[in-house]
């Protein structure tokens, strides 16, 4: 009797899990499906009422992105999209790398040491992410112009620290604090300096945290819009600014915008896929402990 009831509940649970999973996946992925369809549609099909799910697909939108042959006599000779894409890769990678490098040090200090003004400094770091971008966007623009940072990759990498650094520091700090102090003390007894503790104990043990921080930081950088709009020029626009260029004065090239958005996802996808295993590895390490 118990056997039957347990398997009955197990079945109900399994169905509930399945339904929940399906709902979650549909909710998450459905808009992407829509974007994918849009990127394959001719302009006429996009206007269909009711919305068309079956239509004659075309690769013209993707062609336009990379080869510049756009519809409606938009004959850009040199497509800007590949350049915008490269800019995004350069700037986001640079921004995250810089944040992680400096953030690891700062997070370690905040996690493991006690010193005057510690909490105030921690709060200060967080506070740089507080301000609404308009508070300083025009002054920042001025500053960049005067320093020659306007329309440079370096300038954007520095500006992006406002987005990534506070987040990185606080995330890493939380993950560092999860590591039991005994493990560290053991390493110190073995003769490790702070650098050794950091590199041999903290970093390996907080790999899942670092992986998560890197992915999220990269995505925040990649998808920033307001900063590069004002602080970058045509040579340094990332894809986010590039993607809205399909809003023209007399039409909106939804197909190309959709195609650009999808192509822009690829590096983020690749990064998150390649980092997935660090999260998994962290899991097994945790179990061993």
């Amino acid at each position, binding site marked *: 009797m118990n056997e039957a009831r347990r398997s009955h509940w197990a079945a109900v649970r399994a169905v509930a899990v399945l339904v929940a999973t399906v709902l*979650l996946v549909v909710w998450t992925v459905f808009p992407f499906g829509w974007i994918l369809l849009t990127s394959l549609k001719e302009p006429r099909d996009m206007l269909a009422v009711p919305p068309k799910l079956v239509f004659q697909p075309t690769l013209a939108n993707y062609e336009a992105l990379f080869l510049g042959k756009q519809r409606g006599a938009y004959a850009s000779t040199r497509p800007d999209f590949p350049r915008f894409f490269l800019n995004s890769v350069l700037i986001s990678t640079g921004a995250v790398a810089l944040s992680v490098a400096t953030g690891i040090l700062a997070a370690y200090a905040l996690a493991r040491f006690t010193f005057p003004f510690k909490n105030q400094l921690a709060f200060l770091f967080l506070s740089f*992410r507080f301000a609404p971008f308009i508070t300083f966007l*025009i002054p920042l623009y001025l500053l960049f112009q005067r320093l020659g940072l306007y329309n440079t990759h370096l300038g954007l990498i520095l500006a992006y620290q406002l987005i990534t650094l506070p*987040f990185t520091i606080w995330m890493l700090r939380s993950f560092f604090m999860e590591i039991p102090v005994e493990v560290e003390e053991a390493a110190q007894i073995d003769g490790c300096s702070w650098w050794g503790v950091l590199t041999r104990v903290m970093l390996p043990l907080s790999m899942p945290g670092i992986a998560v921080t890197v992915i999220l930081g990269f995505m925040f950088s*990649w998808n920033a819009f307001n900063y590069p709009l004002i602080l970058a020029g045509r040579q340094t626009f990332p894809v986010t600014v590039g*993607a809205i260029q399909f809003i023209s004065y007399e039409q909106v090239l939804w197909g190309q915008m959709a195609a650009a*958005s999808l192509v822009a*996802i690829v590096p983020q996808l690749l990064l998150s896929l390649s980092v997935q295993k660090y999260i998994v590895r962290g899991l097994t390490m945790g179990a061993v402990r």
Partner: protein
Amino acid sequence: MPAVTARGRRRQNALLPYLLLAPAFALLVGMLYPFGLGLYYSLTNYWLQYPHLFRFVWLGNYVALVTEPLFVYALEFTVGYALVAVLVQVGLGLAIALFLHARIPGRSVVRALMLMPLMMPPVITALMWKIMMASTTAGILNYALSFLGLGPINWLGSIRGAMASILIIDTWGNLPFVSLILLGGLQSLPGEPYEAARVDGATPRAILRHITLPLLSPFIVLAITFRMMDALRIFDVIYATTVGGPADATTNLHMLAFQYSFQWYQMGKGMAHAVVLLALVVVASAVLLRFWNRAATHTAA
């Protein structure tokens, strides 16, 4: 190891944390100038087209805010929206994180898919949802709903619908963020408490309440803090869909500040709005971080 006196080591240790913080500090301190300038503008009546009118008004802009009816509404909407959004997003995010942490089939695939909304810039996300939420017949959302026998919803064209739509779009884009932080937290939790609890024969619900949640609390508070900071300042989604409407219903402080600064070029007033928003964020974060400190010290124990 070179021989260092105890005193030397103490001195070295006293300086070390500051040295470790120095690079990060150097990166961010440059931002103080532009921010200071923005603050300075808020104390003036700086209006881009009328430089000849420029003068100091000290707190005049701030005083004027109180009598401006739209400001009061924007303030209410900013706070109200942030509270609801954080509640919904962290609540759902926690549920999803717990769900994905458990051993369900295909969870690595689901986990990878969950990241996808984060891969879109908010501007594009908003535009995409705007098309899906378009008029009663053309939008795919209403079309799908019609199959379920549910009537067309005026997502963006009605006052209530617009507010709900902003929440939906914001949640869609940021739920993965919360889930991921909490999932990362869950996966970095130490194993001993769980083993001990299993040995003691504790129920899953008890484990959740007495072990998981308390151990996870620093991450939960962190997720709440970040989402709160962003929800208070939400802008791109609103600008791309409702532009603060209909009838000013989705106008929050950030939107208002943007309109004053970038649409109407009244920098002084715009900055005043922005500084008020900033103050809100500072206060909220200070309060939340106190919770974080408490949570972090508890779990360390």
